[in-house]
């Protein structure tokens, strides 16, 4: 177990770049095998303490990463990229993952480009009113993230009412669901940190 007694964790949601400090030792570079590299998917991820910690179980890491990539990067129809990132940001905001929210708020701002609205979501939380379409996506993500899950027919009707087809609704479901996976890993295996100056 690794503690970081000198780290002052960021205590606000931000679109700024943050670091992440692991609570268990990442896999040492010298122990990387072909199976680990396959799990990392991108060799550059061997520089990331997060991915090198997850590489302790390479098969599930590889499958997780490939699931992630198709949900967010498959641009074939469905929900625009910006709004998939909005679902990820809203989910992270509601679960309370400051690190995940920072990354995906930056993406949502980049692709939309509505940085001020994204910042209001971070500052005011998931009840911030943005516009009818974004509000429906945020509300659906939050309902799906609640335990017990509160997502149902009313959310689907609200998403249809703002113009989403079934594939786009499925993209909202998968984007929010995936961040229920990612948030729990980031929150429970390490902590965010402000980048070293």
């Amino acid at each position: 177990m690794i503690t970081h007694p000198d780290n002052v964790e960021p205590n606000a949601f931000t679109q700024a770049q943050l670091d992440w400090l692991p609570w268990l030792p990442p896999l040492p570079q010298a122990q990387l095998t072909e199976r680990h590299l396959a799990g990392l998917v991108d060799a550059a991820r061997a520089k990331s303490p997060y991915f090198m910690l997850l590489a302790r179980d390479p098969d599930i890491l590889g499958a997780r990463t490939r699931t992630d990539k198709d949900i967010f990067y498959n641009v074939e129809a469905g929900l625009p990229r910006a709004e998939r990132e909005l679902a990820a940001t809203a989910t992270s905001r509601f679960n309370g993952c400051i690190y995940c929210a920072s990354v995906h708020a930056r993406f949502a701002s980049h692709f939309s480009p509505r940085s001020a609205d994204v910042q209001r979501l971070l500052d005011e939380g998931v009840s911030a009113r943005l516009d009818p379409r974004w509000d429906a996506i945020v509300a659906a993500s939050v309902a799906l993230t609640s335990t017990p899950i509160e997502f149902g027919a009313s959310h689907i009707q609200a998403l249809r009412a703002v113009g989403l087809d079934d594939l786009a609704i499925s993209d909202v479901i998968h984007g929010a669901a995936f961040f229920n996976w990612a948030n729990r890993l980031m929150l429970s295996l390490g902590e965010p940190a402000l980048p070293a100056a």
Partner: protein
Amino acid sequence: MTVVHAFPDVIDQLVGVVAGGAVDEVRARRPLARLHAQQSYQAIFEPAPPPPGHDGAFSAVERFAVATFVAALHRQPAFIAFYATGLSRAGASTAVQETLIAAAQQGATSGPYGSYPAGALSAEDVQGPNYTVSAAHRAVLGVRLAAALAHAHLLVLHPRDAKAEGLRALLDAGWSPDEIVTLSQLVSFLSFQVRVVVGLRALSELPAVAAAA
């Protein structure tokens, strides 16, 4: 791109997807997500032997036991039945199965709750229980599984309360760092899978009106 996948996969089964129906169609448009969600399930619940030098003590009984507890915390009957069946198949006794369900009933509450690092966000702190397995349940499940269930409860319901020091209880109960990563993936993956299932089921139950026009 053609991706061959088994139909129905676990998500299809839990949703009740009909081949060629609306949900089958939308899942087919994201073929790699569909394939790798299933491969994620298989990596966790039907794992290949661990790499040389890594231990493989996280047994099938333990994996399905934690999954049954997580399913019960979500109160989704089809999801509970699926993982409880896996638990029986892995060889767990009825006593273990009943104890997991009873433990989840004691731990079940609404989430996500928890606290933020002190500051402006403290106004959003939501208090909730810090679940530990009762002595009676621990006597049936053992120290190792009891520690895993407490950790699973934290991840499912109040993940923002996680602290580095909290991993000490898992390490003390015999969980290695490799196994803690797998345990975290298991609980986090199930948090994803159950939401995909509930979301797609809602979609399948509300066909688009435009399609009939």
